[in-house]
């Protein structure tokens, strides 16, 4: 009897462990050594079609000023790694950034229809236009299908002949339609141009909606949206072609109270900035919405729920003290343009106090973890110093909104991260007594915080992960989140785990691959492939290792 009980206990324990360990599955392929000409500089995208995975990277001439004083422009070709289901590289293909002998610039490659679609742009100095081109490629041999198409065009000035891409491209979930927008607000301009833009009565942008046969469904040229300087911050559209475009209208009342999206020093007084939204239906009818009057945001984003057609707008409300004071949420139906809910949910002193008092969960600490803990404790002490002077009602350094997920109950799970930068000036003296100084900016990606928000916009509960990564290279966020089966998983370049939304701190576990192949100074990156899959890339010198990190779907 005792034996049976012991066996049952052992089974239960093993089940518990296996559940914990199997939640995130790692599949690592064999190490691949690409030829020199195929060694990429940047990994850009990962696509899953059938049983194969395609990792898109870019390689080309680096930007440099050579001995003769010539400055070489960036020009990249696409490199595509075709991987099988076991993460082994089957082939590497090059898609050159060139049409009819002319160099064009690469933008991105994605799935479109049942093929791959590569996007390029070209600045025509004579016509003073930037053109966007699309070329389809076969999946089997990456051979081009038909001729490339010009799918968008926008004006550039004489000075902007080397400008980057002005277009923003999105593809529907069913890969049947492509939305292209062109907004000149985000490009760097002279002071005179900025002044002229601010004095404009209306801000305008252009859009093109096309199907997978490159037929134009809908187009809008110089569509009015917002007043003065309005920045398009996100766009989404459903499979039917209903489009939703979100912008931030900057306040321009006085010189001092001018609020820029992501402004960290502004305060609320006298602010008349707002979020503006334009919903455009496939037949060209449009509805304009404005909301969050007088608010400004560190970051904001949209998320479409394809099942209901609801679009959630989420923003991190600015406090004026480099920390978010709350969440702004709004839900709009993309088909009817009906505003379903709008709410400004402030964290308040109690919630901020509760979050700031969290302690990291105890984990078997390696040396690096111990360092991280020390760093986290140091940060904590620093934040406590702030407490002594005043009781904050904002989350210090919580300024980056990373992702937003819908669950079946129309609830939102919002994930954000603490972020700040600091600079260090190093001075070195050589044997001859000559001193040289250089300044390095460090980007610090801090703790990850998640909130579960009710359909009405109220914060229900939160999750917290202690995290600290410092880099000298900028990325918007250094993690990704997968939300499946009502569970939230956070994956970083080295670790992953479930983030429990139980008002407590959760912990991440190092990937097996990270432990087994200890790589100092190795390059690591990750890209989401689907709702529950991420491809992890680890490379050192001449070798690349691809791993599939997937979250087990519950039936």
């Amino acid at each position, binding site marked *: 009897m005792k034996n049976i009980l012991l066996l049952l206990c052992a089974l239960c324990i093993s089940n518990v462990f296996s559940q914990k360990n199997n939640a995130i599955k790692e599949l690592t392929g064999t190490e691949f050594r690409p030829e020199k000409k195929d060694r990429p500089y940047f990994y850009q995208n990962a696509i899953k079609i059938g049983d194969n995975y395609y990792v898109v990277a870019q390689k080309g001439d680096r930007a440099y000023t050579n001995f003769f004083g010539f400055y070489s422009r960036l020009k990249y070709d696409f490199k595509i790694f075709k991987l099988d289901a076991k993460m082994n590289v089957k082939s590497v293909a090059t898609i050159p950034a060139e049409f009819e002998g002319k160099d064009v610039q690469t933008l991105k490659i994605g799935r479109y229809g049942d093929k791959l679609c590569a996007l390029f742009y070209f600045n025509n100095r004579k*016509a003073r236009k930037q053109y966007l081109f*699309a070329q389809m490629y076969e999946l089997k041999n990456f051979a081009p299908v038909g001729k490339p*198409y010009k799918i968008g065009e926008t004006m550039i000035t004489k000075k902007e002949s080397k400008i980057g891409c002005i277009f923003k491209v999105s593809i529907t979930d069913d890969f049947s339609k492509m939305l292209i927008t062109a907004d000149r607000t985000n490009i760097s301009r002279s002071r005179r141009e900025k002044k002229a833009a601010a004095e404009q009565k209306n801000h305008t942008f252009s859009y093109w909606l096309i199907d997978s046969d490159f037929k134009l469904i809908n*187009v809008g040229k110089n569509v009015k949206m917002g007043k003065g300087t309005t920045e398009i911050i996100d766009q989404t559209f459903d499979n039917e072609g209903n489009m939703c475009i979100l912008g931030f209208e900057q306040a321009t009342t006085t010189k001092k109270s001018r609020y820029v999206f992501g402004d960290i020093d502004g305060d609320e007084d006298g602010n008349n900035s707002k979020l503006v939204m334009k919903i455009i239906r496939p037949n060209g009818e449009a509805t304009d919405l404005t909301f969050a009057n007088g608010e400004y945001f560190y970051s904001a984003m949209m998320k479409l729920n394809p099942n209901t057609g609801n679009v959630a707008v989420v923003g991190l409300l600015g406090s004026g003290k480099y920390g978010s004071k709350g969440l702004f949420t709004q839900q709009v139906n993309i088909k009817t343009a009906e505003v379903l809910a709008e709410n400004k949910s402030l964290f308040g002193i109690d919630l901020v106090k509760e979050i700031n008092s969290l302690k990291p969960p105890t984990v078997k600490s390696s040396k690096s973890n111990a360092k991280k803990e020390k760093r986290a404790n140091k940060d904590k002490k620093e934040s406590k110093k702030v407490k002594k002077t005043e009781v904050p009602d904002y989350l210090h350094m919580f300024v980056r909104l990373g992702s937003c997920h819908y669950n079946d109950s129309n609830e939102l799970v919002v994930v954000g991260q603490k972020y700040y930068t600091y600079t260090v000036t190093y001075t070195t003296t050589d044997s001859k007594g000559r001193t040289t100084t250089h300044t390095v900016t460090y980007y610090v990606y801090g703790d990850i915080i998640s909130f579960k928000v009710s359909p009405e916009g109220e914060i229900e509960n939160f999750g917290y992960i202690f995290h600290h990564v410092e880099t000298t290279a900028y990325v918007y966020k250094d993690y990704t989140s997968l939300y499946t089966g009502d569970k939230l998983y956070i994956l970083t370049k080295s670790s992953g785990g479930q983030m429990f939304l139980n008002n407590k701190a959760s912990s991440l576990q190092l990937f097996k691959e990270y432990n087994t192949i200890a790589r100092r100074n190795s390059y690591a990156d990750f890209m989401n492939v689907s709702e529950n899959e991420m491809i992890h890339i680890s490379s050192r010198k001449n070798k690349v290792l691809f791993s599939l990190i997937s979250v087990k779907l519950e039936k």
Partner: protein
Amino acid sequence: MTNKVLLAMLFVVSAFSVNAQKNKSKSDEPSNNISSFLNDGRVKGVNNLIRIRLAPSFMGYMGASYERKFTEKFGLEVGANVKTNKSAIWEEYREAHFNAPFGTEYIASKKGIGFSIFPKYYKYGKYINHGRYIGLQLNTRSFKSDFNLYVPSSIMDTYATQSDVACSYKSLFLVWGNQRQFGSRFTFGMELGFGVNQDNIKKLNQYTWDDINSKSIITQIDVKHNQITMQIDLSLGILL
């Protein structure tokens, strides 16, 4: 009544469709005639170039070279230069340092002809329009020169002139170069080279004093001079 309502409805529907379509113009339609969009007035994707170099012109040579890129990485440049006028720039400077017979003075070089061959390996640049390359540049020039020669004498030393002495110059440089397109079909290039050159003078008279017979004797000698040198060159080209 119903007809009127139907007509009104039809009008409204047509008005809506007009509204929806009015933004669409032919230029907005995706088009696969991309040549017109790529035409920015700059010649692209060519592999032939005619180039004028600055370095030979310093020596009074006028000419041009033709370059063809045979593959993405390999190109060959051949050039020809002619000198019709008298000039004394680099040769004078160089030959003044010759280990020539005592008292020999260089006056000027006259008619000459030069050839060059320059195989290149392109590190970057698919077409000849722009790129970075490394190559071996072989130059030969043959020309006629006049010299003042020292003539020793028992009474007073004098100088004699020897005209149309056959001279030649050969050089081999390892060159790093870079060229860039500007305008519609022009290129500008800069090169830096390190290498060796050799100057030859054939049948140069040498006057020596014969103590036994108390008179100067003429002998003809060949003079050779080798040296390590560097070259900086600028070029202008036209794409064909």
